[in-house]
């Protein structure tokens, strides 16, 4: 061959032609979703769900305004004496904000009692202190009653408390004998949340946070009959993938239907982990028909050229999971509830770190994302035993079994439908949607 013709051939090989502007768009439509897109979808879904959860769960101030009857009940409920503290600690605490859910009125009562008690012990009536405190209470009551409570911020309330406390100090009076938690507060402001264990059937919604340990079973099946599969493939992969432990975590929201039924949906993170243990020898090299890809013969390797493949590790797959469920609960007693739940899970592969044996050459490779279906569906049966901790808060222990009814792999010669058992620990919060503009 002359150099002239070789140069021409090289130039012909290197000839290029620009692609049309829409070529990549057409190409991209054929490709599976990229990791970046998967991440964006996952984060968007998570943020949306968290925002929804926050919106539904955030307590409305209007709902927490006490009824006169309840206020009286709360007043009677407070019996515990307030201990006195030293001055340095008191000064620090004076500037701290109190939770808005706690009423000041009972403390005002304790304060008045304390002043009375001190006055009697000193043998004289501490009229000035009592008057200033009383004046402060009245001033704040007047001001606060002029404005709806729900329009005041926590900061504003604390500011009023501090202003009045400073006025007391400015009058040259000693506050060390006053209760540490002393803060002047209108009785209209808020109420004390007392544990109320009365069973409620009113909650239409519930939110469930769960974490589960899962025991993963591979459920792999190999088809060694195809003519593109190496004759020793079955031997190489048999028992190579073993059971392993993974975990689930997520958030679900359920809505009450009649007859103790509920429907629910949510989002979760899922990790499947399987132990891999490859131990085989490549003794033949397949001769592959270029046109059909079929193996037409094998070239046996001499013993010196045979190759041992020995590797152990873990195959880890992470997913985002979207469950849709129907749920039934059966109360056993005031505190204990049994539950059963059927769930359909839509599971999307986020990432994988696994190895796979090439069915034709028996080479052990890192698996490509293209080897897996990006989404698979599964059915899950979950039983649960719930215990009520507070009025609307429960914990539950829930064993479950899940089986995928779609193949996780795109390969024709291997079929994988994972199965797993799991046991989860859940926290369940039942709540009402806030009433708007009544």
């Amino acid at each position, binding site marked *: 061959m002359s150099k002239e013709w070789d140069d021409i051939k090289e130039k012909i090989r290197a000839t290029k032609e620009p692609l049309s502007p829409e070529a990549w768009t057409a190409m991209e439509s054929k490709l599976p979703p990229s990791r970046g897109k998967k991440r964006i979808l996952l984060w968007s879904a998570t943020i949306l769900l968290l925002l929804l959860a926050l919106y539904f769960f955030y307590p409305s101030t209007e709902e927490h305004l006490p009824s006169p009857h309840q206020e009286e009940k709360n007043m009677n409920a407070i019996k515990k004496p307030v201990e006195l503290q030293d001055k340095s600690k008191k000064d620090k605490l004076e500037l701290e904000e109190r939770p808005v859910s706690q009423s000041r009125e009972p403390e005002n009562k304790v304060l008045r009692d304390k002043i009375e008690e001190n006055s009697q012990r000193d043998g004289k009536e501490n009229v000035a202190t009592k008057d200033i405190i009383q004046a402060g209470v009245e001033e704040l009551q007047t001001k606060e009653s002029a404005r709806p409570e729900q329009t005041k911020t926590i900061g504003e309330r604390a500011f009023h408390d501090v202003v009045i406390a400073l006025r007391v100090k400015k009058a040259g009076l000693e506050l060390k004998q006053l209760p540490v938690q002393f803060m002047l507060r209108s009785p209209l402001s808020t109420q004390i949340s007392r544990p109320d264990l009365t069973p409620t059937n009113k909650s239409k919604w519930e939110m469930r946070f769960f974490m589960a340990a899962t025991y993963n079973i591979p459920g792999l099946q190999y088809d060694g009959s195809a003519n593109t599969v190496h004759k020793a493939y079955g031997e190489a992969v048999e028992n190579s993938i073993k059971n392993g432990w993974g975990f689930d975590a997520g958030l679900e929201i359920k809505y009450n239907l009649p007859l103790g039924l509920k429907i629910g949906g949510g989002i979760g993170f899922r990790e499947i982990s399987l132990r891999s243990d490859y131990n085989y020898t490549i003794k033949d090299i397949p001769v592959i028909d270029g*046109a059909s890809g079929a193996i037409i013969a094998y070239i046996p390797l001499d013993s010196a050229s045979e190759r041992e493949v020995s590797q152990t590790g873990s195959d880890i797959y992470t997913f985002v999971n979207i469950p849709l469920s129907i749920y039934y609960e059966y109360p056993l007693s005031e505190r204990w509830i049994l539950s059963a739940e059927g769930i359909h899970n839509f599971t999307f592969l986020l990432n994988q770190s696994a190895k796979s044996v090439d069915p034709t050459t028996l080479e052990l490779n890192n698996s490509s994302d293209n080897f897996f279906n990006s989404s698979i569906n599964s059915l899950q049966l979950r039983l649960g035993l719930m215990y009520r901790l507070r009025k609307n808060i429960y914990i539950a222990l829930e064993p479950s079994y899940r089986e995928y009814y779609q193949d996780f792999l795109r390969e024709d010669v291997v079929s994988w439908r994972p199965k797993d058992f799991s046991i989860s620990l859940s926290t369940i919060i039942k709540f009402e949607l806030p009433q708007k503009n009544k």
Partner: protein
Amino acid sequence: MKKKKEEELIKRCLKNDRRAQRELYERFGPLMKVVCKRYLFDQSLAEEVMNQGFYKVFKNLKNFRFEGSFEGWIRRIMVRECFTENAKKKKLFLICEDQEEKFLKQVPEVQQSHGVEYIMRLIEALPDGYRMVFNLYEIEGYNHAEISAQLGISESASRSQLARAKQLLRSKLNDLQGL
């Protein structure tokens, strides 16, 4: 250095990194479009068939072992894809006497100037059977056994097609050495 960068790009593509996939597509796409045009009966399908080929490239990337030329590996996939497409359209006729006459009449002889574009046009004007075998053998570097498997013809048919193709080209390129 170039090879190392190519390896990194392939590894990123294996992780389904869309930017890397696009980079690879844009690097090899213009070359592969010409390859597809060279082997397709219907050249207007070149880009579509090339995209089918690239889909297979991305899907089978895990099978590339970083031993030979990556470009050569993609070329082979593209060539196979073109012949799969051609098989849907029409059968490849190897005896093309009327096409030979047409070629001899249409293409002017040149004595000295052998610009690449002119030679490419000459090759393009060859009868289908000659052109396919010539391109596969001379440009892609296939041997006759591989050509016979690819085109579904015998090895001797492949040899005779190549010989006729060269004879026709020589008649137009009298002083080109080595052809």
